[in-house]
Every structure is written in structure tokens, then in C-alpha cells.
């Protein structure tokens, strides 16, 4: 099924290659974004995981904050994973980085500890149907406050939210681009104007990056 959507993936640092790969595998064009001019003509934007301090610094340096905020204000779909979620938040519990304040959520960085505390957890995600999603958390942040207009899509067993949606903006603490299960990317593509997400569609393994 071929869709002509063009989804940007912020590529200043982090695992943008993995996101690009999954996007291509679900049939959209993926465009790496390193400068404001790369945002032209996009149907949506993914802000990938990486180091949030690095991401923040480079976004400021290359004047990417305002154009990304404008893209969100125009009602285009934006999705932040891990460090990307930190950048979208309204406030974080640490001193840096300075988030963009696009989503009405509070976020805590490195909520589970250091690299050794990384973990995997099966989650039920609202809107994705009955089949659980295998989520990978790496030095992950967690959502500490959820605004009124924000829906919680998934939480950990202890109740802490790890996936949220506000209008056409989405944020996840974990890394969907690191698993072969492309359902969340398909859901995001539907937010960006692609075909409606079908929770009953068979799972197709995303082939590995070549």
C-alpha cells in the first residue's frame, strides 16, 4: 500500500536512521532534518531518542525550535520518542535541557536510573488493539504530569504514563523504532494524514536495516 506522505525525522543526533527505516517499511518517505529548510513540505515530524542535552543544544544552534513549534501549531503530526519526548514537554524536573513546551506534560529524565537499569516491558497501548506491544526503555524518561487535554495511551504496571497523545502530537518514553513491530509508526502515519490505523491488521516484521 503506497502513500505519498513525507515524514521528517530530526537527524541532528540519535537513532534517526532506525526511525527512517521503519517509516520507509510502512510505505512513507522519510526525510532527515538537520536544518530549518529540511522541514519544508513535510506531513509530520519525528523527534528521535538520543541525548536530550545534545538534541536541545543543536536544535537551538540551528534555529530549529521555532520552525518545529510552527509545524506543530499548524496541526501537523509530531511524535517524540525518549529524548524527543523530553523536548516536547512543558516542563522537566531537571535543570536542563530547556524543553519546547509543545505538549502539556511534565517529564522526568533518566527516571529509571543509568544504562544498567534499562529494561523491556510489554504494554497495552490504547488504540493499538488487544495485542501487547514490546517496549524498550533505555535510560528512559517518564511522564510526571498529564494536562487536561492529554490522553494517556499506555502506562507501566505501576501506573506511570509512558505514552501520551495531545491532538496530533504523541510522546513515548520507549523506543518503538528498535523493535520489528511497526504498529506505533503506522498509528503515527495515520495521524499525519495517512490511511486509518487498523488494529486488526496482521503484524508484519520490519526487515532489518541494510
Amino acid at each position, binding site marked *: 500500500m503506497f502513500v505519498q506522505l513525507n515524514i521528517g525525522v530530526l*537527524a*541532528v*543526533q*540519535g*537513532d*534517526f*536512521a532506525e526511525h527512517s527505516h521503519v517509516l520507509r517499511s510502512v510505505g512513507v518517505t522519510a526525510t532527515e532534518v*538537520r536544518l530549518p529548510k529540511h522541514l519544508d513540505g513535510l506531513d509530520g515530524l519525528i523527534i528521535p*531518542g*538520543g*541525548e536530550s*542535552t*545534545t538534541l536541545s*543544544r*543543536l536544535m537551538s*544552534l540551528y534555529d530549529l525550535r521555532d520552525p518545529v513549534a510552527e509545524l506543530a501549531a499548524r496541526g501537523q503530526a509530531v511524535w517524540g520518542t*525518549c*529524548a524527543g519526548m523530553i523536548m516536547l514537554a512543558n516542563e522537566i524536573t*531537571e535543570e*536542563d535541557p530547556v524543553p519546547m513546551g509543545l505538549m502539556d506534560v511534565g517529564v522526568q*529524565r*533518566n527516571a529509571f*536510573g*543509568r*544504562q*544498567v537499569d534499562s529494561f523491556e516491558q510489554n504494554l497495552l497501548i490504547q488504540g493499538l488493539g488487544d495485542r501487547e506491544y514490546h517496549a524498550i526503555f*533505555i*535510560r528512559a524518561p517518564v511522564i510526571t504530569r498529564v494536562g487536561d487535554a492529554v490522553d494517556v495511551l499506555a502506562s507501566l504496571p505501576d501506573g506511570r504514563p509512558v505514552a501520551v497523545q495531545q491532538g496530533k502530537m504523541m510522546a513515548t518514553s520507549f*523506543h518503538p523504532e528498535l523493535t520489528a513491530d511497526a504498529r506505533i509508526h503506522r498509528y503515527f502515519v495515520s495521524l499525519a494524514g495517512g490511511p486509518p490505523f487498523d488494529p486488526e491488521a496482521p503484524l508484519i516484521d520490519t526487515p*532489518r*536495516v*541494510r
Partner: protein
Amino acid sequence: MLKGGAVMDVTNAEQARIAEDAGAVSVMALERVPADIRRDGGVARMSSPEKIREIIETVSIPVMAKVRIGHFVEAQMLQEMGVDFVDESEVLTPADEENHIDKHAFEVPFVCGCRNLGEALRRIGEGAALIRTKGEAGSGNIVEAVRHLRHIGNALRRLTILTDDELMSAAKELRAPYELVRIVAREGRLPVPNFAAGGVATPADAALCMQLGAESVFVGSGIFKSTDPAQRAKAIVKAVTHYRDPAMLVEVSMGLGEPMRGLDIASIPEAELLQTRGN
């Protein structure tokens, strides 16, 4: 989440702050940068716990630290201290000249160096979660990292054109685990990320490594042995992001002061080469 970034060697809290402010994705905590280890001679060992704690407490980004090849107790200690990545490094004096650490026995992930595909696969077989080139650390000379990146890329491409029944022989020649060779031949890439290290001194060096297929760069002596470390650190971070954009590379390379002086590899006696340690 270290891809597309720069990991910088730091020897104290002030340097760690400079690196984090410049946009480093991680810092490598050390007592001395490789150029100084090379100059001083003697036995180079894991850093003191106080030094590592100091750096962990200073930055919010991941902290890596080095252990001697084969020194699994140094690794146990680093894991205990909460270090995010352990570098089993040829920059330090090997503790075991025949065996590397059994990295599968640890929770903390390891990064190991290699000069070619066989070495990379042996380290991955032992449990390395990340591979980097060895280059010639502390030399400020990119030629060895380039050699190692090219050897790996070339060997990966060659493996993909073999038929299945030729893979056992390929594994024998690579002196690498057969199952890993099968996976790599099929995928055309390593099962873990590959970063460049050893001799990166300029933004152009960093971009060269990225264009040769590295997914991030380690910068050791190249930053804090240069005349303006803060500026050079920022420039290298930018160069890794814009590695395919010559206009950006020119811009970031201006006003950086002098890079580290560096060494001609031919002038290093063979016994003093670091890259031959661990194999």
C-alpha cells in the same frame, strides 16, 4: 542512544562540563588522555573511583570508563559504580594478553576496539554491545582509524557475496564465530553499532569517519590537547551532525585555534603501538 554524536575523553569535572555543554553525547572518564599515557609510559590502569564518581556527579549524560583488556575485576567495580558503558581498552596496559573479558557475564554494556572484521566479531562473540575502531589512540593521526574503518566495510561487503557453503571457510579465515559470520553475511552489517575512534583531531576527521560508515565518533586527546578545547568540542559535535554538508563543515572549522600536534605513525616504534594490543 549514542548514535550520530561525539563521545569525549575527560579527566576532571571541568572538562566534563565543557564536553556536555558542547553537546557531547557521553563522556569517557580517564586519569590521562591517550596522548599523555603514551608520553608518560609506565602501566596505565582503570581510573580511581573518586575520579569516576566526580565525573558521574557532574554531568547528566552517560559516563563511560576504561578497563584494561581482560581485567574483569576493574569491570565489576565500574559496574558497581553505575558507569553506563565500560570500554575494554587497548589504551590501557593489558591485564590479560590472551583473553578478553567475558562480557556476557555483566549487566553493564561494553565497547571494544577492533582493526578488522575478525576482531570485531570476536569481541561481539564475547559480548561487546558496541564496537569502535582502534585507530592509533593519542596520535592525532586519522590514518589508522581510516584503515580500520575501510577494512571493516570492505570485509562486510565481501562477506555478502559469498554463498552459504563458503561461510565456514570465511569464518576460519576471519578467526571469528561461525554463527556471527552467518548473521553478518546475511545482513551486510555488524549486529551492533560501529563507532570510530583513534586519532580524531579536527571536524574534518570526524566527518570523514562518518562518511566512511561510522555511526558516531570518540574523540580522546584531540579535544583537550588542542589550543581551544571548548570551541573544538562544539565544532566536532556539529561536524558529526552535518557530516555530509561541506558548507557546514567549512563554517564549523573556522576560528578553532590549533589542533593537537600529533604523531606520524611511522615514527612510533612498533612496540609502542597501542592498536596491536588485544587481538
